Structure formats: C-alpha cells, structure tokens
C-alpha cells in the first residue's frame, strides 16, 4: 500500500518536482497540483437513483524547453514515477519542433486578493436527500410532476508554482443544482444554479419554477417557419454566451476559426449588449484568484455596448498582439472565467408586452455550428416555449429550431432583463451570469414530415 497523501504532502512533492525539473536546463515550468473531493446525488422520476463521491490528487506539469512544449499530469506520486516522468518530459522535448508562437510565461512574484470559500459545503453532501426532496415537493405543489436532476458539491485545494516565481495556494468550492420537471408527455421545465457558496441555492424555488414551466407548457402546438422575436431565458442564452466567450480567446482568433477575428474595436452587438469577464466574483462558479500562469485575475469588458473591446490573453498571446495579459491563461489557449451579461432594466413581463409575434424560450440544447468563422449555428429549444402575439402569451409550442449567427444574436438584442441568474449546466461547462434578453427577428424552422 502507498503512503497516505494530504495537501501539504502534495505541495511538498510539487516543490520537489520543480527542484528536480529545473536541474534539467528547462526554460519555463508551470506546476498545478491539488486534492479534489467531489459529490453528486442524482435523481430521476422523483427518486434518488445514485449517490456518487470521489477523491483524487494530481500534479500537472507544463514545461518549455527551447520553445518545445510538453505537458503531462502525474497521478501516481511515487518517487520513482516522478523521476521517470521528468525524464520523459526531456525525452519528448528532444523530438519536438519549436513552437514558433510561444512567447513564455508571466514573471512573478504576484500578490493575490483572496477569494473566500464555503467551509460548510462539505456537510451539505449529507443533506443532499433533504435538498432534493424540498425541490421535488415544490415542483409538485400545483400538480403532480415527474422530476429529475442532480445536486453536486465539490472542494478542491489547489497549489500553483512556476519557474518564474509565481506561487499561489487556494481553496475553491462549487455547488450545482439542476431540476427538470415533466408534467405531460410534451410539457416540461428546467432550472439550474451554479455558484461557489451553498447559501444562494434556493432548490425549492428552482423546483417551483421548473414545475410551473412544465404545467404551463402543456398541449404545445406547432408553428410556421419564419422570423420571430425571441425572449431568451438565462438558461438557453448562457449556451450562446459561452460560445461568444470562447471565440474571444486570442488563440481562437489566431487559429482563424473565431467569428470575432478582425473585429477588435468594431461593433459586433447592439448598444444594449455588454459582456464582462469577472473572475473575482465572490459567489460564482468559475471564480479564481489567478490564472494558469499565476497572474492575478481581473475584471474586463469583452464587449462594451456592442463594441468588441478586447480579446482574452495569456502572456504568450499578449506578446504576439503587442499588449498585456488579461489574466485569462490557459497555458496554450486563454479562456474566460465568469461571463457576465450586464443586466438591463426590464422585467420579462415588459418584454412580452413589446412583442407583436414572438416566442419565449426557457431552455435549449444541441447548439452546432455550420461555420465557426461566420458564427452560423442552429440550436433547439427544449422544455417550455410559448408563442406570444400582440403582447400576450397565447399557447406553448414545440418542435422548433433557432437558426442564427453569434453576431446576429448580439446585434438583435433589443432589451435586456434586470434579473440575472447564475448558470452552470449540462450544456454550459463554465459559468455564465445573465438576465433574459429580447432578440428581434430570429429565423425559426421546424421539421417537415
């Protein structure tokens, strides 16, 4: 049996790895290590179908030797395995061509503003049954509904050490709740919540709203192809926002695949649309004190009142673009943290009143691109969707598909809601905080036959 491992031992080993690897005449080294503790309770058809716990540890190594980049993760921390891995890094690097694009990592040391974490979250995994039961009960308050979803909690102790004197130690916690409520065969509703602290989770309210959507959307009808105004709830909008955030990575722009290439300083959205990357939010799913190079993170507007203000950078992409890092490393490709759509002043009821012919979409899935360079995509509304005519909800609809481009979504944003929701979901891997928006003139199609 192996030696028992705790976080201090992982830090000790990480420092040892740094010492050993530096002796090999390498250039830049970034080590990430940590211990993770995760829990998930899954429910379906109003019953808990599985409890799931996991624990694990790792040391990830990023190493540049004469601009040859090698990455690996050690998951078996035996002394001989560490030595072998370091030798393998050197061996691999000897066979690589130079990465012409690589411009190094950030120089530390840095000082970090510390983020708090939820010290009580670990206890919550034992309360999973109660929390889920409350949510199901409120989803069944008005009528009997069939409910499924997950409740997840996690705690990770993280350590970062670089050859350029960045060193950071942090603890992150995450909570995620998802409930999908089904009333009749074609009527359902879905609500989610993702954050850092348990205190903001109102599972009862999420259940109630999912249940209401399910009941209100019964007997859906088909509608004709055509252009409609769309009110998009935070849950489906977050899927699209995450794609816009991904496309704002300087690396994606350089590869030639981003629809935002060549658009810096240009209008890509309406005046109403502002997109912020905010890594230091106290209670958001993807908050982080530092990026993958150890650079302290900071808040930035990616798109301000419809104008593209910046791409997301790490040190290497920033040097290539003659600018400074935005604290968004990704050691190869920069990425956003918490994507925040700036809230507006409208309630959903007000948006409904503004619509002559439209659809209120409460969830969606399966977004696929025809072409990421042009941002052309389609996405399928899922769960409750309602047809609106002359400012009033008329009936629920089914079997529709939204066909648009990422730029059209931003440019056709006419009204922005006042109530943001914290979205992390099956479709949204990261963290998006957004209100609902009203989109004008979006193409809707439906299947034939």
């Amino acid at each position, binding site marked *: 049996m192996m030696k028992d491992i705790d976080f201090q031992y992982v830090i000790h080993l990480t420092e040892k790895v740094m010492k050993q690897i530096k002796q090999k005449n390498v250039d830049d080294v970034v080590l990430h290590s940590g211990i993770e503790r995760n829990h998930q309770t899954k429910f379906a058809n109003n019953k808990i179908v599985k409890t799931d716990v996991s624990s694990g540890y790792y040391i990830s190594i990023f190493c540049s030797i004469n601009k040859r980049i090698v990455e690996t993760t050690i*998951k078996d921390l035996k002394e001989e395995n560490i030595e072998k891995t370091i030798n393998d890094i050197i061996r691999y690097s000897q066979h*690589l061509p130079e*990465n012409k694009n690589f411009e190094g990592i950030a120089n530390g040391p840095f000082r970090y503003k510390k983020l708090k974490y939820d010290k009580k979250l670990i206890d919550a995994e034992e309360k999973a049954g109660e929390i889920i039961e409350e949510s199901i009960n409120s989803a069944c308050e008005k009528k009997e509904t069939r409910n499924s979803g997950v409740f997840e909690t996690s705690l990770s102790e993280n350590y970062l050490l670089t050859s350029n004197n960045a060193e950071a130690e942090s603890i992150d916690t995450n909570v995620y709740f998802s409930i999908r409520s089904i009333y009749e065969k074609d009527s359902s509703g879905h609500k989610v919540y993702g954050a850092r602290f348990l205190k903001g989770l109102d599972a009862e309210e999420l259940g109630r709203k999912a249940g209401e959507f399910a009941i209100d959307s019964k007997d859906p009808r088909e509608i004709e192809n055509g252009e409609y105004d769309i009110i998009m709830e935070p849950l489906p909008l977050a899927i699209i926002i995450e794609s816009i955030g991904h496309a704002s990575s300087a690396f994606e722009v350089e590869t030639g695949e981003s629809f935002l290439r060549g658009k810096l300083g240009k209008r890509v959205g309406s005046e109403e649309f502002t997109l912020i990357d905010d890594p230091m939010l106290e209670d958001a799913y993807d908050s982080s004190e530092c990026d993958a190079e150890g650079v302290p993170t900071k808040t930035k507007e990616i798109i301000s009142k419809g104008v593209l203000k910046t791409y997301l950078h790490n040190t290497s992409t920033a040097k290539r673009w003659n600018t400074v890092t935005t604290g968004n490393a990704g050691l190869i490709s920069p990425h956003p943290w918490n994507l925040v759509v700036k809230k507006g002043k409208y309630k959903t009821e007000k948006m409904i009143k503004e619509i002559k012919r439209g659809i209120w979409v409460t969830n969606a899935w399966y977004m696929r691109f025809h072409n990421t360079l042009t941002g052309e995509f389609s996405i399928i509304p899922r769960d409750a969707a309602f047809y609106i005519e002359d400012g009033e909800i008329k009936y629920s609809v089914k079997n529709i598909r939204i066909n648009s481009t990422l730029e059209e979504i931003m440019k056709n944003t006419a009204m922005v809601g006042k109530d943001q929701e914290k979205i992390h979901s099956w479709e949204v891997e990261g963290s998006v905080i957004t209100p609902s928006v009203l989109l004008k003139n979006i193409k809707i199609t439906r299947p034939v036959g």
Partner: protein
Amino acid sequence: MPKIQTKTEKEADWEEKKSIVDYISSKLKKADYYEIRLVESKGDSILMNNGNIEAVGFGDGSGIGVRYILNGCVGFFSTNFFSKEKVDETIERSLKINSKIGELGKKTKFSKEKIEKADYTVKEKKRIDGIDIKEKIEYIKGIDSSLLESQTKLISRMIYYSDEKTKKMYLNSEGSRIESEIPRIDIYYRFAVSENGSTLQRYWQNAVSGGFEKIEEKHIDEKIKKEAIALKRNIIEGVQSPKGMLEVIVSPEITGIMAHESVGHPYEADRILGRESAQAGESFVEPTMLGSRIGNTIVNVVDDPTVEFSYGFYLYDDEGVKARRKYLIKNGIINEFLHNRETAYELNTHSNGSARAVSSHVEPIIRMSNTFVLPMDYKEEELIQETKFGIYIKNFTEWNIDDKRLNQKYKGNEAYLIENGEITKPIRQPSIEITTPALWSSVIEIADNLELHAATCGKGEPMQGIPVTMGGPSMKLKIRIN
C-alpha cells in the same frame, strides 16, 4: 542514464493496485451487490495549429471505480488514492451519504446474468506505446502537408492527435472477473477554405482501436486533400440547392449520423425510462413500441461492439455482460433497445451488454458502440444512375436533434446536383429537417458500401465522451429539402 521502468516493475505495480480491490471487496460484504473497476490508461497527444506544434502531452494514470447496491440504493465512489486510509475515507463518505437517502432512494434491482470470466486484448502490429512521439508528429505533419497540397486558400488548419491504451480489471460480487487491454487512436481535424470572400469549414474524426497500422489504413491524408478541393469547388461553382420533395442520396457519413442520432439514442432504455431526463433527455420511443413499424422494410439498424478494430469495440461491458450484436430496427420494425442490467430488470428482459463508463471515475451507463445501417445489394453508382433529378450529400457540418430524438437537422457541406443519372454541379448547403419516423419511412434504396465513421458520443453527468462509430452504406431517400 535515466532509470527505465521495466515491464516487471509495471506488472508489480499493477498487482499492487489489484490488492486494493481485495481490500474494497472485504469492506463491501454487506452490500446486496458490488462491482469494482481498476483502470490504467497511458497515452500521448499532439496539438497542431496551422502547421505549428503547439504542445505535446503524455499521461499515465490509474484509478478505481466502485458501484454497489445497499438496501436497494445505488452508491458509486472513485479515487486515484491507493492507500487504505484514503480508500476507507471515501467508502465511509459514500456509505454515510447513501444511508441518509431513506425513502427517497429508488430500490434498484439488476437482471440476472451469466457469470463471466475472460481476459482479452486488441492485437497491435505497431504498438502505439512502442512508436516514438517523433513518428507520430511526422504522421500528422503528413496529413497537414497533404491538405496544403490541395492548392486551396486555407485560413485555418487544426489537427489533434491522441492515443490511449486502457488496461482494465473488472470484477463483481457475483463472481464475474474480466481483464482487458484496448489501444485506441483518434485523429480529429478541422480546416476552413476561403474563396471570393466566402468560407466553408470541414471537421471530422478518424479513430480506431488497434495498433498504429489501423489508423494508417484510414488514409486520412488522401481524404482531407480531396475534401478541401471539393469545398473550394463548392464555393466557386456551387449553385443554390433545389428545394422541395426530392430524391436524395446520402453517403455513409450521413447515414451514420442519422442512425446514431435517431435510432441509437432513442433506443437507449435508460432514456426511455427517464433516468437521463435532466441531461441527454428522454425518448419518443416507449416500451410498448417494441414490434411497431418505424421505417421502410429494407431498413435494418444494428449496434455491434464486436466489430474488430472499430473505435467502439469491446467484448464485455462494464457490468461484466458479454457484448453482442443488437438489431435495433429489423425490417423496419422496432426490435430491441440498448440495455444495462437495471433497465433489463425493469423491462423484464436480459441485458445486451450496453453499459460503459469512460473512465474509473464515472458510473457505467447505457451507450452505443458501433451503430450502423446494414448494407444491401445496390452499388452507390446505381443509386445515382437511377436518379433523374435529385441531390447527393457527401458530408455535413451542422446537425442537431431534439432531446426526444424526433426533430432533427442535417446540413450538407459537400453536396452535388444529380441530373439524368449523373453528378453535375456542386450545391450549397442543402438542409434536411425531418422527424424520425418520416426519415426512416423515406428510405427507398440502400447500397452495399458500408463504412463506419468514428465519433465521440456525449452522455451522462458528469459528461462521458465515449468512443463509438456510426455508419452504414449510402441510402436513397425521398424527402423534402429546405
């Protein structure tokens, strides 16, 4: 000289890890049922963008995943700690949470299945862990060079290579014990061609289980070059696609995605019974629909994990059940669902070996393997020659389907007009938007050119991207084009 770990040391390490399996077994004696998977994976990866090797990665790790039923409730735990103390801590957490579920817990039962003992390995002529990283880089450089030879204006080129050898030991409390070793290689590429201010993009995956020789047999370099040339021609010469009710010939690639999305997924019994409702969704198919017509009598769709060297290959699933070919649609009739032991018990049948987990850290759930339409006698050329006016769709980009698997869309990328039995001009983005029963009822003829195309199928929470193939031969459909 660096110390090289010998095979004997590796084996000793594996044996040492196996000892924790016995320890966990001893801790779960009170469980109604348990199963343990010890998994070790080792592999390389290479990312190349626009000809530049951005990074190379390698990994070597192992973990253990355990599922049990105690008082009727399913618990799962996983770890890559191999110390008794940490394993004890994880088991205690799991048992504690599970004990607090109470009446809200589903009382889960499994179908009775045969006890299996087996040990199998996928043969490699050129072992993936015996090939130097230099050779792997040269191989993907060769693909990139071939793409450049297309003489097209390429504004982005990305190739991602990864290989992985997965060694697994499975045992359950009923006495099944299976060991396996499967090597897999996966090459994903994406590129964009630009002409006259317009762009078209293509992405595809080529993957196998087996040695390096199996990926070489795919001749990716030749295919990618042809695809780029075709996209250039499409931009320059492409005409508007005809619309309305047409005879449409779809290539094996399109047949495959159709079989995967609108046959494989809705026939997963866990979706049918609502277990994946909040994730991948449910299904328009209900248990009572077994035996009912869903398509033309010439339509036969199977899911078969036993296809040698395919990306979706396995011989025993992650519940220890022997894999076999399943006829999902037989002569146009819904014939069989994909089952694990839980759904098989609930629908009063036997598991057909469809439970898989992508790693030790996740539970096994129902997955497709190699899902394809069975070929018939026609040649693809004959389907074309017999078409007076129609279209031929060679490959696609955008596609999606609703969470019940009824409403689907496939947007053609490389596509052509057929006039008087001959392929003539390229056409732009023909779009099929159709319901599942309408699609499979519209199949008029099926060719003999069976192809399997690799894909990574997403399902589960946390997401499990599992190796599969999807395929079939070319098919002629009579459908409406938008």
